[in-house]
């Protein structure tokens, strides 16, 4: 559908654990326009991270249609899916998940190693991404030398650096103090408004959700 970057129709997801079927998402229908900043809220176990994972192509739906950035991700092979993620998805984790032995620069450069960019081009991209998140002066610092908020900003730069179609954030402020969380939400808001990045963010923090343009709630696997 033109103008929508995410189209979800009748999506159903269940996990099988020890021969038991555990339904997580029921009949999800969701269309996200390009340039949207959507917050998915809900209590623990409501299925919001599962939905985010499905949109990111790191999990597969049990039933239903899921199209992201023009691709029906359920039909892609693992290799195609990895390539698709590299091209279209920028993922921000709750616990940053930076590689501890790499500097901020090297961490941000990681997704670019999968591209055909030259070393000089990669450097330019990384420096731009780190400038956007306000950490140009910390590019040679290791994660252990950064605060939690700074680490998350490096993680955001890493998600941004390939200029993905969509940014997905899983509880991006969940591990931060209030001040750092506000700075991160301001940054995400800027990325949405100034750079027109589509953002889907999972959170259970109402303050964080305030930065989003649209808030949807998930409860017991259903969108309300």
């Amino acid at each position, binding site marked *: 559908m033109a103008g929508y970057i995410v189209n979800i129709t009748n999506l159903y997801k269940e996990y099988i654990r020890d021969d038991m079927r555990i339904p997580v998402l029921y009949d999800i229908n969701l269309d996200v326009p390009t340039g949207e900043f959507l917050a998915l809220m809900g209590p623990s176990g409501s299925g919001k991270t599962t939905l985010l994972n499905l949109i990111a192509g*790191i*999990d597969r739906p049990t039933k239903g249609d899921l199209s992201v950035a023009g691709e029906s991700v359920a039909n892609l092979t693992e*290799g195609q899916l*990895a390539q698709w993620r590299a091209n279209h998805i920028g993922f921000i*984790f709750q616990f940053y998940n930076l590689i501890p*032995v*790499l500097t901020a620069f090297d961490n941000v450069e990681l*997704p670019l*190693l*999968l591209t055909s960019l030259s070393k000089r081009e990669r450097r330019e991209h990384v420096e731009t991404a780190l400038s956007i998140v306000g950490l140009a002066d910390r590019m040679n610092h290791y994660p252990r030398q950064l605060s939690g908020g700074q680490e998350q900003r490096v993680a955001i730069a890493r998600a941004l650096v390939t200029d993905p179609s969509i940014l997905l954030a899983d509880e991006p402020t969940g591990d931060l103090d209030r001040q750092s969380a506000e700075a991160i939400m301001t940054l995400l808001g800027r990325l949405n408004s100034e750079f027109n990045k589509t953002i889907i963010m999972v959170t259970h923090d109402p303050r964080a959700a305030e930065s989003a343009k649209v808030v949807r709630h998930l409860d017991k696997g259903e969108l309300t």
Partner: protein
Amino acid sequence: MKLLKLIVKNAFRHRLRTILTILGLAITIMSFGIVRNVLEVFSFSEDDLIPGHLITRHKTSMMQFLPYSHLDKMRQVEGVEAVTYGFWMGVRYGDDPEEFFARMAIDQDNFYKIRSDWITSEEDIEDFKTVKNAALITPALALKKDWEEGDVITVGCDYFETVSLDVEIVGQFEFAQEQNRQAEFMLVRGDLFRRAIGQEVSPEMEHQVGWIELLADPPDEATEIATRVDSLFMNSDMETKTEPVNAYANAQVERFRTIITALQVSSYLMIGVILLVLLNTMSMVARERINENAVLKTLGFRGKHLVILNFGESMFVALIGAVLGAALIWPGIKLFKTLMPFLQQVKFEWITVVWVIPAMIIVGILASLVPVIKATNTSIVDGLRTLE
């Protein structure tokens, strides 16, 4: 190449663990190298044999001497082209336990007729025959001791400790076999040694020899000629056992069979130990990186990238250990020879290093299997749920 930086950084993520792993690998590889080089001492090539070369010893034991008179009788046997004799004198030199070189007393008049594998000049052979206390030495020994022609050296015998000979160096000889070129060796006149043991041990010893060597002609009838020689002394109290040198060498090796087998098994076990050491480290890596591999997959890294990262890390550690271990083999052998004076023939063989590198590549591949399988088989969702 783009992933090389991450491979190297990953390898030293737990610096102490990696250093200990590399040290463990290096020490085991060094031990493996030393053991393999020790085993080389017990191996010989058929190509090095002199055609028709027979050796005669006492039938009862190699330790028992034979009568000197046997030599003349053997010369009468049809097919015996030449006869000579020898004694093993030992390796100790002086009172210093770290001073040693191999010595043999040989038949000064006939040795060169058979031992074409000892290369010396006609002039030196002549001097060896005519100078009554002559000795020949290898270039390696001359170099080590800074000995030259005309020097008079006092040497003893390991098992007749009262025997002491003042020998004059009259020339040099060299082993034809490449692997023996660095041997530190001295040949002493046999008659001089026989006289000495006759005086110092017992008079009848002057008329005995350690072993007898023969040259059979034609060489392909050597076995029949050996039987003919032995039949001469059958039912005497000095019965002989004559056999081709390769059979004799095999019999010598057989004496050490248990030790050789133990060393061979140990060397293979060492490869197993190397594999276990690396496998242990890589298994820890596999466990620690579940979450991180999931993150990399989320970023778009594919299975092949994770294979490269894990295989590269395993190979990196294995090869550093291999290079360090290989570099330690040579000094290790030097140390080993210092500690084991009776195994001076042990020397550094490049083939050991050639052996180590492919062996370590295989070990590296095998050790990387655990993290590779773990990394590629764990789903992203399961990986992300795993706490580091």
